[in-house]
């Protein structure tokens, strides 16, 4: 699905990513882990065309992503649910979801809206409410629902569990696995190492701008180096 090789990117001369290699195959959940400020969000921005890459290669469905505008990346079906949700606070829940299909899957808007409401009954109850006045958990539902409206071929989730109560975090991971079971490949960027490794098929650990460790999620969860560094065990 997605092949990234030697990806370098940064901000105004400060290099953040120094040669990232990773891939997502059909049907997988990939966890991308790493400490704060290591460049996970930067990687997502480059993939979705918001930030230009300095070097390297990104192939999505056999097609290069370099030089595509964010709109073109969306059109290709690579949908990025960003860190901090970035929903439209001044617009209703329903309008937020509708705009999810602004560029892609517009013709199936009504049917997909029903699907999102079925996944998040809470959003149906609140469809007329301004999204900015929702609780944090509800806002995260809007962000993911908005992504689903575009019928993603690959979904990037940047810290979907951020700011959620433990119970909601459980629900969020259950949802991610359910979406994946329906055939959707997911790239999951998280701080929540234990649960991410449980949900994912494979994982990449980023350190100092490169992939320091990667492999089967289950094997990584048992890796002593990882347990020391990220779980404090």
């Amino acid at each position, binding site marked *: 699905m997605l092949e990234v090789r030697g990806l370098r990117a940064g901000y105004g001369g400060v290099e953040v990513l120094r040669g990232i290699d990773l891939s997502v195959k059909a049907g997988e959940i990939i966890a991308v882990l790493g400490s704060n400020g290591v460049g996970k969000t930067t990687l997502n921005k480059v993939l979705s065309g*918001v930030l230009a890459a300095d070097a390297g290669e990104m192939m999505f469905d056999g097609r290069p992503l370099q030089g595509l505008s*964010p709109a073109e990346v969306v059109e290709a079906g690579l949908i990025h649910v960003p860190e901090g949700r970035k929903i439209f606070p001044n617009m209703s829940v329903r309008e937020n979801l509708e705009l999810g299909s602004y560029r892609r899957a517009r013709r199936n808007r009504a049917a997909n809206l029903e699907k999102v409401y079925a996944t998040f009954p809470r959003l149906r109850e609140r469809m007329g409410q301004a999204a900015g006045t929702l609780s944090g958990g509800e806002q995260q539902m809007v962000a993911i629902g908005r992504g689903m409206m575009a019928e993603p071929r690959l979904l990037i989730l940047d810290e979907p569990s951020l700011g959620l109560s433990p119970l909601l975090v459980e629900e969020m991971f259950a949802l991610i696995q359910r979406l994946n079971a329906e055939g959707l490949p997911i790239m999951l960027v998280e701080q929540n190492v234990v649960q991410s490794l449980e949900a994912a098929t494979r994982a990449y650990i980023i350190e100092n701008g490169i992939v320091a460790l990667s492999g089967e999620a289950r094997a990584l969860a048992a890796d002593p180096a990882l347990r020391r560094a990220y779980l404090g065990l």
Partner: protein
Amino acid sequence: MYSLPIVLEATLNGLLTGAIYALVALGLTLVYGVLHIINFAHGAFLTAAMFAVWMAVTFLGVDPYVAIPFLTIVFFAIGYGAQRFVIGPASHGDDGNILLVTLGLSIVIENILLAVFRADTRTITTDYAFEVVEIGPLLISQARLYGFLAAVVVSGLLWGLLTRTDTGKAIRAVAKEKLGASLVGIDVRHIYAVTFGLGCATLAVAACLLMPIFYVNPRVGQAFVLVAFTIVVLGGMGSIPGALAGGLFIGVVESLTGLFFGDSLGQIGIFIIFILVLLLRPSGLFGARA
């Protein structure tokens, strides 16, 4: 004291003029709400549109109301192009630069108009300029009544566009959340240009409505924009219902101040209100508290 019909008539006339003010303010507040800048070229674009109406009437013999659809499209295109190919690229995404670029643009437009038309004041004549409509005991200028109706229709259309169409929703999305908008595939630069184009299109309509009751010279837009700016602040920066209500309110204030204190003082009432709003409710009468 003035008799009731005279006060009523002044109030009504104020409402009618206010609707056109509202239209000018609508474009200003829309651009502010989305691009977060005061468009200093707004007045110059209005002047240009009024000259365009004057030319259409004088050289082509077109009725100003008939010219509305055509000039709306032309000015939408001009506004779209100005933002997409001049203001946007020249400002490199810096709001301070956008201000200066629109200021520069207004100077260029005004000087071109001055060079072509010189400083003369020009008017058009229409058959209905002095026609009146009787509403009970009140006499209302026909041209002002048309202006009012057209302003209401255009505001309604704009509202419909912003709330019912994907492009309108994209405009409202970009206004508050640019990154989120990009990530659903909205082309932010395109939406900026569409917004600017809509701002200019409302000016074209306002110009068509103004010319039968007003005059044009290369500086005329400034006066309207000053009033429009007052309306935008009054109504809450970026608020469209605020611009409408504010426009009507300012029209009535101007008309009644003129009636009670003399025509030359009509605008003073507007600026007293302006200062009072800034002192007492800086977020505007209708705006959300910051």
